[in-house]
C-alpha cells in the first residue's frame, strides 16, 4: 500500500496553476508527419504509375536496399507519434495537482468571424481532453509501431503512414478543439481519413465501396451535428464549449423541447460516428481496411468520438431526461443487437467489428445514465483491449496470408473456419489475445471488468434513482445490458477457440509457413496486454475497492478517473441530482454493487469456461466445405438480420429511383420539354412565314406593290 502512496498523491488535483507545454505542437507533429509521408507517397506513386503506363507492374521491393520512400516512413510515422505522446504525457503530468476547474484555452487565430459570430481556431486542455489525448497518442503510437511490421510489404507503405498521421491530427483536433466547429473539423476530418483508409486498397471495388458507405453514413450523422450547432448558436450566440456549458443550466429550461432537440441531434451525430443503431451499418464493412487501421480508427479512437461528444456536452444531455433515455436505449439495444450478430460471424474481423459496435453501445449506455466517467472509463479500457484484439487478429491474418500466399491457395485468410490450432504457431499472440478476451468478457481483475461492470451497475442504480420518471425503462436496459455481457463472453470465446484451439485446418503444406509475428508487432501486443490487465485499476469504484475486488483497498486509484473528470462533469451531475434525486445503491432486484459484480464476473467466467469446453470439442469444417447457414436463426444472424438489405430496399433504391425520375422526367421532359416546346413553336411559325420567301424578285415586287396600294388606300379612305 505504501508502494502506491506517492502515485496516489500525485494524481490528486490541487490548487496550482496549470501551464501547458507546447500544446499546439501535439497537433502539429502528426500534421508534419502527414506532409512528409505524403510527399514520399507521391514520390513512390509516381514511380509505380510510370511502370504501369509502360505496361508492367511496379515492385518497390525488388531493389535492394529498399527505396527511401519505403524506409523513411517507418521513422517518420511512429516518430511523430512518439513526440506527440511524450508531449501529451508532459502536459498530463503537468496538469496533475493543478486546478483544472477552468479549462486552459489557447486561441491561435480568429477562424470565422462575422458581425454576430466569433469562432476561433482554439484548443482546450481540460481533464477530458487530456485523457483522450493520452489514449490517442499512446494507443496510436503502439499501432503505428505495429504497422511498421504489418504493412512492410505493401507498395502503398508511405501513403498508409501519411493517412494514419493525418488521422491522428484530425482526431487530436476533435478532442482538443475548444468549440464545436473546431471539433467538427476533426469530426469530419477523421471521417475523411477513415474513408481513405478503409478504401486504402482502392483498386478493389468492394473496399472502395466500403469507404464510400462509411463516408455517406457518417455524413448523415454530421447533418445532425450541424443542426445541433445551429440550435446552440441561436440559443447562446456562441459555439464555444465553456460559455455554453456554464450558461446552459440557466438559459435552457430543464426538459424543454429545445434542449431535447439539441441533444437528440447530437445523438444522431454521435450515432453516425460511433456506429450506433440505426447508423452502425458502415462499421462492419469498414473492416475492408488494413487491420491496424481497424484497431486505431474503428476500435480505439474515432468510433469513440460519439461518446466523447456526449461526455463533452454532458450538461445539455443532463438537462434533457428524454434525450438521456434515448441515448441509453440506443446504446443498450445496439449492444445486444450487435452481440447477437457477432455470434454467427466467421470472419475474424467481422466478429471484432460487431463486438466493437456492441461495446460502443455500452459506452452510450454509460453516458446515457449520467455515468459520464464510467462511459469514458470504458472508452479507455476498450481502447486497450480492443486495439489488442484487432492487432492480434492482424498478426493472425498476416501469418495466414503469408502461409496461403506461399502455396497460392485462394482461401480467405480472415475466415476462422480456415484457422484453428494457431496457438502452436503463435504463442504470444495467443496469450495476449486471451488476456484481451478475458478483459472484454468482464472477468476480474482485467480492465474490462471494472469499466463494464460500472456501466451496468450505473444503469441499475439509475433505474432506482429517487425521482427518475423512466425507472422501469432503465430496469429493462439493465437486464439487456447484463444479457449482452453474457453474449460477449460467449462470442469472444468462440472466436478464440475457432482461431487458436483444436486442429489446424489451414492445410498441411500451408501450416509449415504459419509463424509468429515479428518482434515489431508482438511488442505492441504485449504492452497492450499489460494495459488490458491493469488499465481498469485507474477507476475502481469505491464500493468495490473495500471488497475483495479492490483487494480490500490495496488497489491504488479508487475512483481516480471519476475525480479527475469531475471539473468537466460536475455541473451535469448537479443537474441530475437536483432533478432525479440521489441514485440508488441497490440494483433493481436488490443486492449491492459488490454482489452484482461477483455475479457478473462469475457468470462471465463460467460462460468462457463452459463454452470453450463445449466449442473446443466440436469439429469445424473449412470455409469451402461449409457454406453459409441455410436455415433458422443462424441464417438470419449470419446475414446480420438483413439490415443492409432492408436499408437498400427502403432508402437507397427509392432515393436512386427518385433521382432518376427527377432527371429523366422532371428535368428532361417537364422543364426542358417546355423550353424546347417554346423554341419549336417559334421555329414552326418562322417556318410557316418563310414559305412566303421564295427568293423570286417578282413575287416580292408584287407584294410590295400590294402593300403600297394598301397603305395608300388606308391613307385616302
Amino acid at each position: 500500500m505504501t508502494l502506491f502512496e506517492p502515485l496516489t498523491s500525485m494524481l490528486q488535483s490541487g490548487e496550482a496553476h496549470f501551464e501547458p507545454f507546447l500544446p499546439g505542437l501535439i497537433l502539429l507533429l502528426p500534421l508534419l508527419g502527414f506532409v512528409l509521408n505524403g510527399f514520399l507517397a507521391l514520390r513512390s506513386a509516381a514511380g509505380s504509375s510510370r511502370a504501369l503506363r509502360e505496361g508492367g507492374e511496379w515492385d518497390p521491393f525488388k531493389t535492394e536496399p529498399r527505396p527511401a520512400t519505403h524506409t523513411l516512413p517507418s521513422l517518420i510515422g511512429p516518430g511523430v507519434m512518439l513526440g506527440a505522446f511524450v508531449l501529451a504525457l508532459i502536459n498530463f503530468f503537468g496538469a496533475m495537482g493543478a486546478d483544472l476547474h477552468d479549462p486552459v484555452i489557447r486561441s491561435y487565430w480568429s477562424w470565422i468571424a462575422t458581425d454576430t459570430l466569433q469562432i476561433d481556431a482554439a484548443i482546450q486542455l481540460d481533464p477530458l481532453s487530456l485523457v483522450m489525448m493520452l489514449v490517442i497518442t499512446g494507443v496510436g503510437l503502439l499501432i503505428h509501431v505495429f504497422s511498421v511490421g504489418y504493412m512492410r510489404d505493401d507498395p502503398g507503405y508511405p501513403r498508409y503512414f501519411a493517412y494514419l498521421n493525418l488521422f491522428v491530427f484530425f482526431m487530436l483536433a476533435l478532442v482538443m478543439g475548444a468549440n464545436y466547429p473546431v471539433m467538427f473539423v476533426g469530426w469530419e476530418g477523421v471521417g475523411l481519413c477513415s474513408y481513405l483508409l478503409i478504401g486504402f486498397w482502392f483498386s478493389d471495388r468492394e473496399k472502395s465501396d466500403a469507404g464510400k458507405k462509411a463516408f455517406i453514413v457518417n455524413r448523415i450523422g454530421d447533418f445532425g451535428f450541424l443542426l445541433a450547432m445551429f440550435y446552440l448558436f441561436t440559443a447562446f450566440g456562441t459555439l464555444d464549449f465553456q460559455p455554453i456549458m456554464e450558461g446552459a443550466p440557466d438559459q435552457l429550461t430543464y426538459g424543454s423541447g429545445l434542449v431535447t432537440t439539441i441533444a437528440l441531434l447530437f445523438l444522431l451525430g454521435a450515432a453516425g460516428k460511433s456506429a450506433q443503431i440505426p447508423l452502425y451499418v458502415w462499421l462492419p464493412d469498414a473492416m475492408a481496411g488494413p487491420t491496424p487501421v481497424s484497431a486505431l480508427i474503428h476500435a480505439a479512437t474515432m468510433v469513440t468520438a460519439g461518446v466523447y461528444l456526449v461526455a463533452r456536452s454532458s450538461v445539455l444531455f443532463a438537462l434533457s431526461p428524454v434525450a438521456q433515455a434515448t441515448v441509453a436505449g440506443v446504446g443498450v439495444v445496439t449492444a445486444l443487437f450487435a452481440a447477437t450478430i457477432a455470434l454467427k460471424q466467421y470472419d475474424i474481423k467481422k466478429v471484432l467489428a460487431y463486438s466493437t459496435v456492441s461495446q460502443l453501445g455500452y459506452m452510450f449506455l454509460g453516458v446515457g445514465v449520467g455515468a459520464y466517467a464510467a462511459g469514458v472509463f470504458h472508452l479507455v479500457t476498450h481502447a486497450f483491449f480492443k486495439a489488442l484484439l484487432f492487432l492480434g487478429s492482424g498478426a493472425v491474418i498476416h501469418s495466414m496470408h503469408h502461409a496461403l500466399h506461399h502455396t497460392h491457395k485462394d482461401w480467405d485468410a480472415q475466415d476462422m473456419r480456415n484457422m484453428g490450432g494457431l496457438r502452436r504457431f503463435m504463442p504470444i499472440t495467443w496469450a495476449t489475445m486471451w488476456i484481451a478476451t478475458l478483459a472484454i468478457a468482464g472477468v476480474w481483475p482485467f480492465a474490462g471488468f471494472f469499466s463494464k461492470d460500472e456501466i451496468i451497475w450505473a444503469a441499475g442504480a439509475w433505474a432506482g434513482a429517487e425521482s427518475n420518471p423512466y425507472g422501469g425503462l432503465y430496469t429493462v436496459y439493465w437486464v439487456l445490458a447484463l444479457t449482452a455481457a453474457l453474449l460477449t463472453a460467449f462470442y469472444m470465446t468462440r472466436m478464440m477457440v475457432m482461431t487458436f484451439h483444436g486442429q489446424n485446418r489451414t492445410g498441411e503444406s500451408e501450416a509449415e509457413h504459419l509463424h509468429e509475428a515479428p518482434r515489431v508487432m508482438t511488442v505492441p501486443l504485449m504492452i497492450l496486454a499489460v494495459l488490458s490487465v491493469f488499465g481498469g485499476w485507474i477507476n475502481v469504484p469505491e464500493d468495490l475497492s473495500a471488497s475483495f475486488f479492490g483487494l480490500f483497498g490495496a488497489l491504488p486509484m479508487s475512483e481516480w478517473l471519476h475525480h479527475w473528470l469531475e471539473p468537466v462533469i460536475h455541473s451535469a451531475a448537479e443537474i441530475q441530482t437536483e432533478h432525479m434525486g440521489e441514485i440508488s445503491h441497490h440494483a433493481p432486484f436488490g443486492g449491492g454493487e459488490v454482489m452484482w459484480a461477483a455475479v457478473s464476473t462469475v457468470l462471465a467466467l463460467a460462460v468462457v469456461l463452459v463454452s470453450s469446453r463445449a466449442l473446443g470439442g466440436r469439429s469445424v469444417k473449412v470455409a469451402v466445405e461449409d457454406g453459409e447457414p441455410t436455415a433458422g436463426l443462424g441464417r438470419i444472424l449470419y446475414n446480420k438480420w438483413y439490415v443492409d438489405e432492408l436499408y437498400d430496399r427502403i432508402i437507397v433504391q427509392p432515393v436512386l429511383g427518385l433521382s432518376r425520375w427527377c432527371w429523366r422526367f422532371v428535368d428532361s421532359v417537364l422543364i426542358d420539354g417546355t423550353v424546347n416546346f417554346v423554341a419549336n413553336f417559334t421555329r414552326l411559325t418562322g417556318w410557316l412565314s418563310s414559305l412566303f420567301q421564295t427568293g423570286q424578285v417578282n413575287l416580292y415586287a408584287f407584294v410590295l406593290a400590294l402593300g403600297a396600294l394598301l397603305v395608300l388606300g388606308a391613307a385616302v379612305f
Partner: protein
Amino acid sequence: MLTEALFVSTLLFVIGSFGFVIRRNAIIMFLCIELQLNAVNLAFVAISRFVGIEGQLYVFFVMTVAAAEAAVGLAIIISIFRHYETVNVDNFNLLKW
C-alpha cells in the same frame, strides 16, 4: 393639261410595275424599273409647273441615279449571264436563305 400628264405618268408606272412582276427576263425587268423611274420623272416635271422649280431638280437627281443604277445593274446582269448562261430570274433565288 396636268391631268393628262399625270394619267400618262400613272399608266407608265403601272405598265412598269406589271412588267416587273410578270416578266422573267432580267433585262426586261430592268427596263420596267427604268419605265417606273421615268413615270415618276414625268409626274415631277408636270407638277413642278405649278409648284416650283424643285421638281425639275429632282428629275436630274433621278436621272443621274438611274444612269448609275443602269451601269451597275447591267453589269450585274452580264456577270450573272456569264455565270449561269441565262437571265431568267426563275433560276435565281439567292435572296432565299
